[in-house]
């Protein structure tokens, strides 16, 4: 079951490479949030109500609801066009993301480690690099925030792959920090929309030496 969920997660990354509309990105983020909840819930060794609440908060409430809701509002507030405006054609993006996934599989194959969960490791590394790729290959700054969220999803899976649970208080701190960063990025994306009338990375090129 866990393997199936990770494969579906990898498929969402491939879909991100070719998604043409901003709203599709947000729908994928919601879907990824739900997938992560299922993955984490199935992966729990010690199933108690406290763990479940923390995971529920982190994945469903935060990743699948709050962040997509913020992004949706920013799109509406700034009247952002539907197109994702990639620098490269979708076909090439698809090839690159597929290359990232294949590369992650090869990398995990070359690591000889008994503790590391290889399946999760592939999902995590693929998500981190796909997130980075989305950031460098898209023009709108909102897609950069989406890329950051994908990286964070990758980091979440990596923490499952490693299987070392942090103390609950530390986990809560990490979660709140990430949420606050996405919120701050969202607020500034909104400001950029208000000030520059164009939520585009090309308008942010005035600071030079």
């Amino acid at each position: 079951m866990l393997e199936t969920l990770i494969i579906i997660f990898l498929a969402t990354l491939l879909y991100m490479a070719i998604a043409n509309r901003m709203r599709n990105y947000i729908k994928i983020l919601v879907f990824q949030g739900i997938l992560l909840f299922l993955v984490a819930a199935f992966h729990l060794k010690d199933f108690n109500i406290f763990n479940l609440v923390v995971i529920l908060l982190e994945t469903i409430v935060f990743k699948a609801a709050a962040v997509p809701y913020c992004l949706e509002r920013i799109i509406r507030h700034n009247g952002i066009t539907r197109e994702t405006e990639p620098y490269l054609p979708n076909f090439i993006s698809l090839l690159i993301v597929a290359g990232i996934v294949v590369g992650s599989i090869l990398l995990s194959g070359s690591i000889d480690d008994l503790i590391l969960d290889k399946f999760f490791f592939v999902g995590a590394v693929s998500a981190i690099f796909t997130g980075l790729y989305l950031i460098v290959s898209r023009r709108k700054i909102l897609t950069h925030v989406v890329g950051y969220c994908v990286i964070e999803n990758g980091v979440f899976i990596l923490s499952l792959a490693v299987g070392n649970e942090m103390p609950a208080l530390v986990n809560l701190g990490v979660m709140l920090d990430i949420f606050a960063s996405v919120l701050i990025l969202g607020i500034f994306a909104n400001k950029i929309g208000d000030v520059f009338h164009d939520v585009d990375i090309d308008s942010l090129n005035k600071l030079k030496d």
Partner: protein
Amino acid sequence: MITAIYLAAVFCIVIGLVFSRSRVLSDLLGVLFLGVQTLLTVHAMLHQGCTELNYFSFDAMGLILLLTLTIVSYPTLLHSRIYLTKPLSSPGSAAVYNASCVLLIAAMTMGYLANHAAVTWIFTEITTLSAAMLIYHHRSKLALEATWKYVFVCAISISFVFVGILFISLALLHDGCSELFYTDLLAHKATLNSFWMKLGFLFIFAGYTAKLGLFPMFTAGVDAKDKAPAPAGALLASALMNLGFCGIYRVYSAISGTPVADWARMVMLIAALITLFIATIYMARISNVKRMLAYSGIEHMSVVTLGLCFGKAGFIAAMLHIVMHTFVKSGLFFHFTQLWRVYSSKMIDDMGDYLKLNPFGALVLLLGFVSIAAVPPSGLFFSELLVFKAMIANGSWVVFAITAFLLTVLLWAFARSIFRIIFLPATKPVEKIKISPWESVSQLILFVLAAYIGFNPPAFLLELIQQAAAMLQ
């Protein structure tokens, strides 16, 4: 107990500052914050080695950086007050500024004292968020651009740090340890899986360079220090860089003495030399005073990182350098507010005749330049000399030659700009305004303090540095 009081007090003070629209109340809350900051520092110094709230330890490294930060936080709040009144900021933006400034200092404090890798991470992330509000203080297009870039680059970098922490936790799990306290790392140092430690160190180092100001992530920091109000820039260019160093040191101390150490030193050496090279190139053609100070900051952090690469002797020099750099660099940033009031510009070409326009300020600026350029009688001269000695003792003549050459070019570039501001005639007429010499006193104290530490380092400071160095092998 005191840590808990500190955290609760900071929380209340920040909330109070956000909602305060009265200058008197904000000043009172600022003084109260300095009180609790000093209380925590004194308490920590008296209870060295103790742990509070499970996640905060008063170890040598944390204490050195905490003491430095607390000393700098006094003039920071003083100059912030001057900054917000000349010209008068709106109560709303002053409230956000004051609250963010206090939050930034508190987050750095807890980041220094954290004894758990993930807790350091949490407070480093809080510094990014509070710094963002400081950088955006002017609400201008350029400030917005700088803020966006800073938050974004730091958010990605801090994610890298977290990935590194996860890899290190995997190495610890192989040793049967599921905790991530730095003491656990040190206890298992000899048997940690070298592959995961290498990967973990690489990610953590790359991530913390956003704060430390080294290649590859230094870019956003330069823009941030340029656009942030000068008193906040002083913190970003000194104490916040120290937090990056602290994060790297804590992981490096768990590596030093193991087979991974040589590799980690090579990574740091390459990053430091590339940074030094970039800083030299930019300094040679710089036209903006604040960016010049920002590039000088990354130059000094390269020297500090080089010190860390060359054994215990180099590390001791690096620690002295970090303490003195914090005082001198923040002093120079505080002084920038006077330059701005005189010329209403950041551009070096618009400046000149500073000695006539603000005689006492010009002398203090000259002393600041001598201090930061590490020319005798600057304290930084001694620490740089010790870093060079450590390089030579290690037989690294090539690194020594490259560093000495780049630092000489940097000195020339820096001197050219500062002498132009102080001695050469202004390119356009400048109206003389009255600036009280009292505003330069805090800078003077900081520069003299740095020189004193260089000439005669206090015994307790040396002892703390020796203790921090004992972690390295």
